[in-house]
């Protein structure tokens, strides 16, 4: 066996486990919690493999120089990456200890021994912790309201900062007109660096109040051009792009008889809490507290932006509000560093306003997919062509040729943020994620076209390209089934030999009583994918009622994540992913006017409300002897497609452009 990827740079047992407290096990993971329950699942894995009590384990806070470098917590890979590494480290420790205690060895020769990839792992049939639901270790503090989130940090001498952002992309500061405002005694300083403006105060209300006043008087050199709502489709169609063939086999026909195009708009992360960071300059050192998904890449990019040695930066992770990809967390960390520099020795906490959060964080890219197919006389698909276009899905720190934190594009010595790239194909790709269908088509051509101009900053949002790619594939399958008078479920099964895929489809059909009679205006639709074609299998049936608008009344979900670590955790992630996808699919779109995002508040960027939430039933198909797969993103694409297919069955209208609002439904009536 080879070492798990995460262990290549951190090969010792002591890189992962800390036995320095007698009777206790410190778990050192490079992955971070942001609401997905990962720390609970990792604790189950370690406790199980070491044979110690769950309550004897604690998580060592992720910090640079202490935690293993596991790059980003992303892509539903934490259980695969960190889980595998911790399992091997624990199995090595167990074998090495034999009848001795872990803590005696710690006091003696220590645990700086290489992890053994061939260490005997516990047999899954002997598991007593893994595979059983376990309460989350983070929920108690969240319910009590005690200090937990990064917003709650209150170190001594703390100052609070807020940022004044430019009125639109590309505008530069001419004059702040500070002389027009009488500053309150609570204001410490207004920091200006190029077009980066921050207000620092003794409390957050004072800082925010001054930002509001400055917004009214500051003079900017505004560039009138930029993205508008109406120009989006044209941009997607005409922008320069880098083209890549992801799959090609069999006959390549230029004209296929069935054709359709699908799209989604830019989407916001829209977390309920706004991103926050704390920074403190102490002599030559900079200490940053951040909710970033990748403390090491962030350290490297901040060091690059400041032209300093990364060793001068120490980063501690602190949980923020829900995180669904590359949001403004890294930006806020760099904001805090820039501001705190003016207050040597003092910590400065930066919280973004709601308008900053919805108006300036990176967006999930708008995308377009063009599909074409040929079906033979027996109703079998013979040719399949998929072309996906859009901006890249990653502008994460240290992944581009220059720093990618927002403020770097505003400060005097900075530069514009370069167009987003995509994660490498072995990690699932970005634009082309799930563009290759899991179905058995004889002739296939799959092409991704990543745009090389980026008017609006884009980056990773949960499931990346899989949201639209699966939406498109699964919508088109229903269209083809309908044109050839076949049942959508049977049509899928006829083209799918993958046994675990067939199982989730069959299971979800059973859960939803697929095929039952439904009243007029009500419809059921189905959607399926295997996330990244190598992660979890997931099938969803949605039931909708369409009157004035679309109401989703039920979702049935069948999922196969291989070995299940924490069943309740998996259900929570799968259901959460489905409801977030429902929200994107039915309601969400970022709106623009001349390069300014106008959907920067909850009225203009509405998300799913409690009264709109369907009943959800999730069934997990357990496979204890197969590898554990991530659950965070698997339900996103299938849910989106299931809803569109259900709408079609309810009112016989095929909506190909998300979101499925009344406007887009009306525009789709043929």
């Amino acid at each position: 066996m080879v070492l798990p990827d995460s262990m290549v740079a951190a090969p010792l047992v002591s890189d992962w486990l800390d036995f320095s407290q007698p009777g206790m096990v410190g778990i050192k993971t490079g992955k971070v919690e942001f609401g997905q329950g990962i720390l609970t699942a990792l604790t189950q894995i370690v406790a199980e493999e070491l044979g110690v009590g769950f309550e004897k384990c604690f998580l060592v806070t992720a910090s640079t120089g202490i935690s293993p470098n596991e790059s980003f917590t992303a892509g539903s890979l934490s259980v695969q990456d960190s889980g595998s590494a911790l399992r091997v480290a624990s199995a090595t420790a167990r074998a090495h200890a034999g009848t001795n205690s872990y803590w005696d060895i710690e006091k003696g020769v220590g645990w700086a021994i290489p992890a053994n990839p061939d260490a005997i792992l516990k047999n899954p049939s002997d598991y007593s912790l893994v595979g059983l639901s376990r309460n989350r270790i983070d929920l108690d503090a969240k319910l009590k309201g005690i200090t937990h989130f990064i917003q709650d940090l209150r170190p001594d001498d703390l100052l609070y900062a807020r940022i004044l952002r430019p009125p639109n992309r590309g505008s530069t500061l001419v004059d702040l007109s500070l002389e027009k405002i009488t500053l309150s005694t609570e204001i410490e300083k207004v920091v200006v660096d190029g077009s980066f403006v921050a207000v620092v105060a003794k409390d957050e209300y004072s800082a925010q109040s001054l930002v509001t006043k400055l917004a009214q008087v500051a003079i900017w050199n505004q560039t009138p051009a930029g993205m508008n709502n109406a120009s989006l489709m044209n941009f997607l169609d005409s922008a320069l792009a880098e083209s890549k063939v992801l799959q090609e086999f069999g006959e390549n026909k230029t004209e296929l008889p069935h054709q359709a195009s699908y799209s989604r708009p830019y989407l916001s992360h829209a977390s309920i809490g706004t991103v926050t960071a704390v920074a403190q300059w102490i002599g030559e050192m900079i200490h940053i507290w951040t909710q970033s998904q990748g403390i090491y890449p962030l350290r490297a990019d901040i060091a690059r932006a400041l032209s300093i040695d990364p060793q001068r930066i120490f980063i501690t992770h602190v949980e923020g509000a829900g995180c669904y990809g590359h949001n403004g967390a890294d930006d806020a960390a760099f904001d805090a560093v820039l501001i705190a520099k003016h207050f040597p020795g003092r910590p400065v906490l930066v919280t973004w306003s709601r308008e900053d959060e919805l108006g300036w964080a990176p967006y999930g890219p708008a995308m377009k997919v063009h599909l074409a197919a040929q079906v033979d006389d027996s109703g079998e698909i013979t040719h399949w062509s998929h072309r996906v276009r859009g901006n890249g899905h990653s502008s994460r720190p240290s992944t581009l040729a220059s720093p990618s934190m927002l403020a770097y594009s505003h400060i005097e010595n900075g530069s514009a943020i370069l167009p987003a790239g995509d994660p490498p194909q072995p990690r699932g790709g970005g634009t082309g994620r799930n563009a290759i269908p899991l179905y058995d088509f004889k002739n296939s051509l799959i092409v991704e076209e990543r745009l090389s101009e980026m008017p609006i900053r884009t980056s990773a949002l949960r499931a990346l390209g899989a949201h639209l790619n699966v939406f498109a594939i699964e919508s088109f399958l229903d269209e083809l089934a309908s044109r050839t008078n076949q049942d959508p479920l049977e049509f899928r099964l006829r083209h799918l030999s993958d046994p675990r895929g067939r199982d989730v489809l069959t299971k979800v059909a059973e859960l939803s009583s697929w095929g039952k009679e439904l009243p007029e205006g009500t419809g059921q639709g189905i959607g399926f994918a295997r996330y990244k074609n190598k992660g979890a299998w997931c099938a969803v049936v949605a039931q909708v009622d369409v009157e004035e608008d679309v109401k989703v009344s039920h979702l049935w979900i069948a999922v196969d994540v291989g070995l299940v670590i924490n069943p309740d955790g998996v259900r929570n992630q799968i259901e959460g992913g489905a409801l977030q996808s429902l929200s994107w699919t039915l309601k969400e779109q970022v709106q623009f006017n001349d390069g300014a995002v106008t959907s920067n508040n909850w009225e203009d960027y509405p998300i799913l409300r409690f009264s709109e939430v369907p009943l959800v039933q999730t069934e997990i198909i357990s496979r204890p002897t197969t590898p554990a797969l991530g659950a965070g993103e698997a339900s996103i694409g299938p849910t989106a497609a299931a809803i569109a297919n259900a709408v079609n069955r309810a009112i016989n209208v095929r909506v190909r452009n998300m979101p499925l609002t009344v406007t887009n439904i009306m525009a789709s009536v043929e």
Partner: protein
Amino acid sequence: MTHLSTTLDYMADFQIRVNNKVVDVDCDKNTPLLWVLRNHLNLTGTRFGCGTGLCGACTVLIDGTPIHSCDTPIWAIGNKSVQTVEYEENSTLQRIKSCMASEQAGQCGFCLSGIMMRATAHIDSLATLDRSSIADALDGHLCRCGAHNRIIEAIRQAGS
């Protein structure tokens, strides 16, 4: 007590009752209760989400009635009693917390403080506690992680 500060802002000393304790706060009279709690009193369980009363994250009880602390200035509190998520003497709130824990109702948990305060008032109002009445009561509260169904079920259990 009120005095003019050295600037044009009106600074004042306020006495307010929070979680059954009387506390002194010296701040601008227009300071929203949210920032009084978070910055001046170090009660950080009440969350900032939007500052405009559109997400519910900052909800607290004032004399038992849920309000958005982000757009309620401190001068408007007067003698009324403020309860926040940290308050341990409210039996309805404690019951909700225990049901939220048993239902594992939450992911990131950022929205939960406000939701639990709203739910406390909803249960105490003796409203019917079925799925739709709870969903309607929570309709001004946003949850992005998709924990809605668990939250509804926990509140239903807490009230029954």
